[in-house]
């Protein structure tokens, strides 16, 4: 019989092997934050290239002022859930503003994007239903599927033919199916082939959920995300989003034109049994949404930076994700190599995200850069220079073994 904590033995030994000094990249302390792109880590000033601060709005004066006013006017927290303890004006105003932004008649704000996913998918799909999810979907979607009790079927990442085959196999059950994809996938930065997915859905039936966590404010003429960019917004049944990335706060939402989705407020445990977002968080999110809408130049800046980083790393010979995007993933070899690479970047004053399997798809190890509209072209050059200095790590032998981490 295994003792309660024995399940952590494997984790403990992996951690000791990968991080012998005891300092793990997964326990990084940001000691001080100076701006959307600079902070102090390990006593040194570093350039931040591993946030999800796509529009660089975390220090926008408009957002800070809105949050300050809200905290003074309405206090630090709501101390309860919306159903039991009431909605504040800000919650309702934000829902109305998001409804206007997406031209959706139902928007529900949740306390995080993770909870929005649990709240929609975990509640709407039941034991008689089926969920078809892209293999590379985020953990929040996997968890939501589990919570639902539905039959969970995974299709190959971005493979529309595989999705189609599976819908075909479901026959009449296709009508009871939720298809779940993401606008931009968080690890490799690639988009879903949404127009083709919508075409398949049209042919076989089902409902489509698009998690726009990484594409809100990033894609589409108005920044609504991939559903806008692909021109299929009216055929997406449910849009999930988060305030924690381009809007620089915390929280999440569901937008839909199915009037029945309002019932999720009564049925969704992740909506009912957790406290609603604080007034200051809602206020800064509303201000950030206004900036997202009124300043398309933020999106242009972001894409100029993203393209610059992607092209330069490509020219250095790095293996990257399949297409330029604000998420730029550099694929590496063994776990040890990836850790050494991540540390090398930090020593050169660049903070990025280290991602190891199973968090990275396909058994890859990678370092993930995320670009911000707040980066200057000169800062992007500094990041690229550090990558150029680290080419040598890739040329060391042993490097490309162990891609399954065994």
């Amino acid at each position, binding site marked *: 019989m295994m003792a309660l904590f024995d399940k952590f033995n494997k984790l403990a030994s992996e951690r000791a092997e990968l991080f012998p000094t005891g300092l793990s990249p997964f326990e990084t302390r940001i000691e001080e934050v100076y701006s959307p792109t600079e902070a102090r880590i390990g006593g040194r000033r570093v350039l931040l290239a591993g946030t999800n601060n796509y529009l660089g709005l975390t220090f926008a004066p408009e957002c800070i002022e809105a949050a300050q006013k809200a905290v003074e006017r309405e206090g630090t927290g709501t101390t309860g859930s919306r159903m039991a303890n009431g909605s504040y004006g800000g919650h309702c105003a934000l829902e109305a503003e998001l409804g206007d932004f997406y031209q959706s008649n139902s928007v529900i704000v949740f306390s995080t994007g993770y909870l929005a996913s649990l709240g929609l998918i975990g509640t709407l799909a039941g034991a008689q239903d089926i969920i078809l999810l892209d*293999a590379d979907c985020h953990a929040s979607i996997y968890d939501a*599927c589990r919570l639902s009790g539905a*039959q*969970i*079927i*995974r299709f*190959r990442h971005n493979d529309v033919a*595989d999705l189609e*085959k*599976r819908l075909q*196999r*479901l026959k009449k059950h296709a009508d009871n199916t939720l298809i779940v994809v993401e606008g931009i996938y968080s690890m490799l930065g690639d988009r879903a082939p949404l127009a083709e997915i919508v075409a398949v859905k049209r042919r076989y039936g089902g409902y489509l959920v698009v998690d726009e966590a990484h594409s809100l404010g990033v894609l589409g003429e108005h920044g609504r995300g991939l559903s806008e960019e692909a021109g299929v917004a009216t055929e997406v049944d449910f849009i999930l989003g988060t305030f924690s990335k381009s809007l620089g706060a915390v929280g999440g939402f569901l937008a839909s034109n199915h009037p029945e989705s309002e019932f999720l407020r009564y049925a969704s445990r992740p909506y009912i049994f957790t406290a609603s977002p604080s007034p200051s968080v809602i206020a800064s999110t509303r201000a950030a949404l206004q900036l997202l809408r009124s300043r398309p130049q933020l999106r242009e800046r972001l894409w100029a930076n993203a393209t610059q980083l992607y092209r330069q790393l490509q020219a250095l010979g790095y293996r990257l994700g399949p297409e330029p995007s604000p998420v730029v993933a550099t694929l590496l070899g063994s776990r040890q190599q990836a850790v050494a690479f991540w540390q090398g970047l930090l020593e050169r004053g660049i903070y990025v995200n280290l991602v190891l*399997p*199973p968090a990275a*798809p*396909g*058994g890859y190890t990678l370092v993930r850069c995320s670009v911000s509209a707040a980066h200057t072209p000169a800062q992007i050059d500094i990041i690229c220079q550090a990558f150029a200095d680290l080419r040598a790590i890739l040329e060391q032998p042993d490097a490309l073994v162990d891609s*399954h*981490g*065994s």
Partner: protein
Amino acid sequence: MAEYQQILDRLYTHLRPMAPQGTTLDEDTDLISEFGLDSVNVMDLLLEVEEDFDISVPLNLLADIRTPKDLACTIIRLLEAE
């Protein structure tokens, strides 16, 4: 039983390339604790197997699939249900 053996043999062709060096494989090998796959490897294996047999295996069934034998029996059941 002939069908079972054929399915098992086809599973082995998918499994062998994933084998860490020096691991043995038979119908009772535990795919995770003995064969060394992690949960994502198992889900990726499933994608290949599903394509080969032209079926979808719901992830809900994974909790009860520990060995090649379990997987083969699941496949037979799903093929029969068609």
